[in-house]
C-alpha cells in the first residue's frame, strides 16, 4: 500500500502532541485546528455538548505561550464586554480604556449563538480587522490573534442563529464527533488521573507562531492546485442543489488553509488531497442548499463531497 511519508515540522509536532495529551484520538481534528491557527483563521466548532469542544480550545491555548481569553457568550453579553470600554479613572480623572475580553492571543467565544446579534457583530469586526476602534482610537490586538468559537446545534431555544456573513468569517467549521469505545475508556482513565489542560506545558511561543505564519505563506502551491480550488468553488456555484455557492473569501480561506495544512503535515507544497480533505470543513458552512438539495443531500458537508466527486483533479500542468 502506498503511504506518503510525513515529516512533521518539529514545533508543530510538539504542539499537536501536547494537545493530544488531553484530547484523545482526535488527531485529525487537532491537525485541522492547528492548521487553522497557522492560517491565521478563526475556528467555529459545532457539536453536541460534552465532546470536548472547550477542552480542545483551552488545551491549544495552554500549549502556547499566549494569553488566553474566554467569554461565555450569553444574551446579556454586551459588545463592550468583548472589545472593551472607556471609563473615567476616578483617581487620575482621565479617560481610560479598559480592554475587553478579546485582547488576548486565543479568544474562546463559548456558545457563540447564545449572545445577541449586537455582540456577535462586535466580535465580527475584531475577527476581520484584528483591531478595536473605540472613541477614535484604534487598538491593535496582539499577534497572533485567533477566535475559537463553539456552538451547540441542538437546544436552539433562545439562541440567535449566526448569520451567513458571520459564518463566512470562520476559516473552518468542524464537528468533533463522539470518541470510539477504546478512546472513551482512555478518556475515563485520564479523567481519573486529572490530566487536564491546566497541566499542559507551553511548547510554543507567540514569536515562534508568527514565524510559522511566515512559513505557511512560503508553502508552494502549484497552478494546478489553484485551478482545482477555483474549479471546486465554481462547481458549488453552478450545482443545482446549492442555492448559495462559496464566495471568493471562501477560496482565499481554502488557499491559506491548504498551505497551513501542508505545513502541518510537514510538506513544502500543497496537494489536491489536502484540498479534498479540507473542502467539507472550509466550504461546508459557506453554502446554502436549495430545497432539492435539502431533500437529496441533507447536509452541507455531503453536498460538498458530491461536488468534489464531479470535479476533475488537474494533473496536466507542470508548476
Amino acid at each position, binding site marked *: *500500500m*502506498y*503511504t*506518503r511519508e510525513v515529516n512533521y515540522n518539529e514545533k508543530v509536532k510538539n504542539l499537536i502532541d501536547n494537545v493530544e495529551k488531553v484530547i484523545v484520538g482526535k488527531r485529525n481534528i487537532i491537525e485541522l485546528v492547528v492548521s487553522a491557527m497557522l492560517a491565521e483563521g478563526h475556528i467555529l466548532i459545532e457539536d453536541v455538548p460534552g465532546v470536548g469542544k472547550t477542552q480542545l480550545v483551552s488545551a491549544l491555548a495552554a500549549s502556547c505561550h499566549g494569553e488566553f481569553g474566554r467569554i461565555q457568550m450569553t*444574551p446579556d453579553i454586551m459588545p463592550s464586554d468583548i472589545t472593551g470600554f472607556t471609563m473615567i479613572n476616578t483617581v487620575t480623572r482621565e479617560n481610560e480604556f479598559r480592554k475587553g475580553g478579546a485582547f488576548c492571543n486565543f479568544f474562546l467565544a463559548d456558545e457563540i449563538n447564545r449572545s*445577541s446579534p449586537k455582540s456577535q457583530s462586535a466580535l465580527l469586526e475584531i475577527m476581520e480587522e484584528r483591531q478595536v476602534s473605540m472613541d477614535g482610537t484604534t487598538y491593535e490586538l496582539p499577534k497572533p490573534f485567533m477566535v475559537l468559537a463553539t456552538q451547540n446545534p441542538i437546544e436552539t431555544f*433562545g439562541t*440567535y442563529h449566526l448569520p451567513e456573513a458571520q459564518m463566512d468569517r470562520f476559516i473552518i467549521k468542524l464537528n468533533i464527533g463522539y470518541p470510539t469505545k477504546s478512546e472513551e475508556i482512555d478518556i475515563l482513565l485520564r479523567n481519573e488521573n486529572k490530566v487536564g489542560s491546566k497541566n499542559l506545558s507551553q511548547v510554543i511561543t507567540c514569536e515562534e507562531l508568527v514565524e510559522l505564519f511566515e512559513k505557511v505563506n512560503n508553502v*508552494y502551491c*502549484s497552478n*494546478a*492546485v489553484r485551478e482545482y480550488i477555483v474549479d471546486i468553488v465554481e462547481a458549488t456555484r453552478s450545482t443545482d442543489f446549492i442555492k448559495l455557492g462559496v464566495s471568493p473569501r471562501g477560496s482565499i480561506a481554502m488557499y491559506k488553509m491548504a498551505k497551513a495544512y501542508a505545513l502541518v503535515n510537514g*510538506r*513544502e*507544497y*500543497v*496537494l*489536491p*488531497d489536502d484540498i*479534498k480533505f479540507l473542502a467539507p470543513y472550509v466550504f461546508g458552512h459557506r453554502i446554502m442548499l436549495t*430545497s*432539492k438539495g*435539502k*431533500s*437529496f443531500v441533507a447536509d452541507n458537508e455531503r453536498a460538498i463531497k458530491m461536488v*468534489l*466527486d*464531479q*470535479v*476533475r*483533479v488537474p*494533473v*496536466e*500542468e*507542470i*508548476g
Partner: protein
Amino acid sequence: MGRRRKIFKGVISYILALGLSVIFALFLNANVGWFMLLALTLAPMMSGLLAYITTKTIRVKSNIKECVLSKGDKCAVTVKIINRFIIPTAPIEIYVLNGDGVKSKDKRILCSVMPLSENCVTITFDAKICGPSYIGVEQICVTDYLGLMSFVLKKIDYSKLQGKASVIPEIADVSIRDDRLLKVMSASMNADDSEDTIDVSMRTFGGFPGYENREYVPGDPIKRINWKQSAKRDKLLVRLDDEMASKAVTLVVDSTFIRKNINVHDSSFDSLKVLVEEDEIIPKLAEDAVENALGIAKSLILSNYTVNMFVKSDETFVCYELIDDKDVENIRLNMASYRFLEDGLSERLPEELMAECVGMIISTPGCSSEIHGYLEGRIDTSKLSIISATDEIKGDITDGGAIVRNYLNENKAIIKKKENIYDKMKSVVTLCAVPFILTMLLSITVFSVFDVGPWSVWILPQFVAAVAIFTLCVYTMNHKVVGGLGITVVVVTMLVLYIGIVGNNSDYKQWFMSGGELVDNKFTFLISLILVFTVFFGMVVFYYTKILYRTSALLLVSLIPFVIYVKVIKDIHIVYAMLVISFNVFTFLVNTRKVRDQGKRIVGKLATVLSVIFYAAVFVLTALAVPKSQETKYYYIFEEKFLGGNTTVNLPEEYKHENEYSGNADGFNQLTNRKLYVIVGANIKGNMYFRRQVFDYYDKEINRWYKDEEYADKKYVLQDWAEEKNYLSSELLIDALLAAEELSEGFLEKYDLQAIEKCDITYLKKTLEVRAQNYESDTYITPLGIVNLSTAYGNQVSHNQHGILGADMQFISKNARYNVEYYDNRFIARQWIESGGADFDNESALVMLKELQKILESGNKTLYLKVVDAFKNDLLYAMEYNEKCSDNNEQISEQVRELAFEITSKYEYDWQKAEAIQNYFHSGAFEYDLEYDAEDDSIEHFLFESKRGTCSDFASAYVVMARAVGLTVRYVEGFVPSEEVGVRYDKEYVIRTNSSHAYPEVYIQNLGFMVYEPTVPAENLGNEIDGGAIMYAVTTGFRLLVIFALVSSVIIIVLFVTRIFMPIIKEKIFVAKVNRAKANEGIIMLYIRLIQKYSLPHIERISSNTPYEYASLFEELTGYDIGELCHFVEMAVYENIEMVDKDKQKALAVYKGAKKALRVALKTKK
C-alpha cells in the same frame, strides 16, 4: 389500442393477404400465388403453436418495490423474463401499469428471449405528478408472430410485479400578498388582539419589530395600523410585529376530491392541457391542492406564523404543527402518499376547525361551493378563507411573471406538438416511406433508362399499388402488430407489384424474371432485389428482435438476396459464400458477447460498421470474381419451375418482318439487348453463324443491298429445293468420290483429288443445345451447318437424318429447345480446300461433277447420285446467280476493281481469291469502329480513305471486290454468338439482338456457299472473336463496382489494421514520446494515460481522484502498487521538482507493470 381490436385488425389483414394471394394465383401467376397461399396457411398454425409453447415455458420476475420519488425523477422497473425452452420465444408483450402521476412512455413493451436464456426489460417510469401511484406490469401477453392470436399469462402473480410509488410534492411558490392569505393572517391577529400582555423585554430579542409593514386589508384590526407610515405613504399600512409570530393559522387540506364534479373538456382547463395530457388533468389538480397547501404553509411560516395543518390520514384528521422549514419538509414527505377520497362529505373537515373558525381551507377544484354550503350555518365563515386548487395563487410577484409563464406554456405546447409530429414522421418515414420512395425512384429510373418512358400508361397501376403499400405500412405501424403480418402483406404486394399487376406488360415482367437480363442491367436488378428483401425482411427482423441481436439477424437475413442472386443469376464459388456466411456468424457472436458482457450495449458499433462494409465488399468482390453475365442452371430451374416458363422477346414491328434493304444489323445493334438464343455445349466461338437475310444486289446510291425477288421466292417456298439441299453434304460427297474411284480407277488422279482419301471430317461434328427464346418474327434466324436436329426430349424433328452439310432448314419453332449436331462450316471448308477439293473453276467443276455422275450411274449408286445432283444443281445455281449479279457489277468503280485485281492477281482458284481478299482486310490497315460516323459512307471511302467502319462496311466492300474478280458471292445479315458465359459448366453462348452481324458468303466449288469473315476484331474492346463485331460492352456500372470494391477493400484493410495493430502501434509511439519528453512531462503523460486509457470499469475517465487516491484504488482492485508513479506525479506537478530521467524510467516500469496488472484484473473480473 385494445388487444382485441389489434387481433381483429390482424385477422382482417391476414384475410386480405390470403385474398391477395388467391387473386394472384388465379389471375396473374399461378405458381407464385399458390406458393404464397400455402405459406400463408401454414404460417398461423406454426406461429400459434410457438406462441402457445411460449406461454408454458416462460417465467417472469421483477425487482419492483415500494419507492418514494421526487418530481422529475425516473424510476426503472426491471422485468426479467426467463425462457426455459430450446426455441426462442414468440413476441412477448408487457402491458405497463401506469399510475396517475407516475407514468411510462410505453404502454406496451415488446421483447423476445433467446433459447435457454433470460432477458431483462427495463420499464422507465417518469414521476410527473405527486401522490401515490401503483406502477408495474399490468398484464403479460404472448402474441404469435403474425399478430393473429394473443395469449394472456394468467398463472403469474401480478401483484408481485406491481408496486407503489409515491411522488413527493413540491412546495409551491406562493405570493404572500394574496388577499386571501392576508385576510387569514389578519384574522388570526385580530383574535389575539385583546391580550396585549407580552413581555416587552422578550420583544427586544424576538426579531426585527416595527419596521415591516404591509397594506391594509379589510378585516385588519384598526389598532395595528401604523399611522405614521400610512401618512408618509398615503395608504393604510399595517404593522407586522413579532407578536404575530407566535400566532397560529389553521390550514386544512380538503380530504375529498370528487372527480365527477370536474369536466376535463371544459375550456377553463385549456391552459392546463398545454402542460399535461387530458387524463392527467385530475391528478394535476389534486397535486395543485397539495402543493398550494404546502406553499401557503411555508409562506406563512416565513411570515413568522405557526401553521396547524390538518391532513386526513385514513379515518381521522391529523394535525401537524408547523414551526419552521424542517417541519414543512417533513410534512412534504408525508404528503407523498396522500390520497384524496372520492366521497364522504360529512367527514370532510376536522372538528377543531369548527371550533376555532379561523383559518384557511385548501379545497379541491369543483368543491369550494360544496364546502361553503356545508359550512353555512355551522360556523361563522367570515374568518375563513377558501382557496381552490385551480386558483391562481402561485408566485405572481410581478406581472411579468405571468407573462413569462404564459410564454413558456405556449412554447411548451408548440414543442410538444412538434415532437408529436416528429415522432410520427420518424416512424412513418423509417417504416415505409424510405423503401417506398427508393423503389419508386428505382423503377422510374429503370423505365426511363430503358425503352419505356417514365410516364407510360402502366405507371398508374404501380402508383396505385404503391399507395396501397403506403397505407398498409401506416396501418401496420399504428397498431404495431409486431409488424409481422403487415409486412408479409407488404412483401406480397411488392411481389404482386413486380410480377403481377405491372407484369402484364411483358417488358417489365421480362425484366424481373430475367434478372434484369433483358434490359441489360443486372445492377439495377441486384439493387432492387436487395432493396425488396433486405428492407422488408429487415423490418420484420427489426420488430421481432427489438431487444437483441438486431444487427446480426439483419445481416443474416440480408443473406437471402445474396443467395438468390448467387444461385439464380450467378454461379458463385463456394469460398466466397463461406466467407460471407462466416463473417455474419462472427458478427453474430461478437454481438452476443457484447450483450452478455455489458448488459446494455446491444450492438457493437464497430462490429456493425465492419460487417456492413465487409458484406458489401464481399458482395462486390464476388461480382467481380464471377464472370459478368451468367445464367446458371439454377436460373433455368428458377425460371421454369417457379416463374412459370420462358420469357417473351418483344421485337419492334420493323424487325419482325423481312426487310427489303440491308442495314438491319445496325438497327439490331441499337435495339435493346433482347435475347434470341442460348446455345450450350460446344465451343462455337466465332464459328457458328446465324443467317437471317440474304441480299443480292448493291445499290451504290444508298450504299445498301437489296434482294432478288425471284431468288427469295425460290428459297423460301420450294420444299423440293429444301429437300434437295439435304444431300448437299461434303461428307457424302467424299463418300461419292471414293465410290467413283472404286468404280473407275484413276478418276481422282485425273482431277487431282487423291488427298480426298485422307480427308476425314467426321470429328468436326459437334453436339450442342439450342434454346430458342420466345420472340415473334417471320424471319427465321437459322444456324448454319446443322446436321441433326431433335427436341430436348429426344423427338426427331429434322428431315436431315443423314447429316447433310449446309442445310439452312427453317427449324426454328419459338420458345423451344433443340439438341443439334452440326458441322463447323469453316473447318470443313479448310479441310476440303487443303485436300485440293476446291481447286476448280466453275466450268471444270461442272465437268468433274458430270463425269462423276456418269460413273456413279454406271455403278447404280442412287444415294450418291442424289448427292452429286444436289452439288451440280448448286453449282448451276451459283453460275446463274453470278450471271444475274454481273448486271449489278456496273456499280463497281474502277478504283475498287483495280484493287481487287491487284490483290487476287497471283491466285488461280476462287477459294484462294476469297481468302486473299479476306486477308487484305486482316492485314492490319483496317480498324473496327462501331462509333465511326463517316461523312461519305461509300465503299471507296471505306477502302481508301477511312479504313474503319462496322461489319456491314467490311462485308459490303468484300462482296463488291469479290464480284469484281468474278467470284460468286452474296451479302448476308445474321447473327454471330459473341457473348461467352457459363464458364464453370458447359460452354454457353447467348445470341442477342445486338449480336447481329453482316458477312459475305462465297461460293466455293464442291462446297457451296461458305462464310468468310472480312471484319477485323474490335481491338479496342479486347474481343478476340473473329468478326465478333458486337461486344457485350463493359458498362459504367461495372466500372463503378470495381471502384467501389477497391475502396471498400481499402477501408476494410484500414479498419482491421486499426482494430488490431493500432493499439500496439499507438502504445509504441506513446512510449517513444515519453522517452523523448522531459522527465516531468513524461511522468505526467504516463499517469494520465494510465488513468484514461486503462481506466477500470468503475473509475470514471475524467477522474476526481487525486493521484494518492487513485493509487490506493488501483491497489485495491488489482493488487499492484503504483504508489511510486503517483508519488513522482505529485512531486512533478504539485511540488514543482525537476525530476531526473532515472525517475522517468522507474515510472515507465511501474506503468508497464500496472498495465499488465490491469489486464489480469479485468480478465478475472469477467
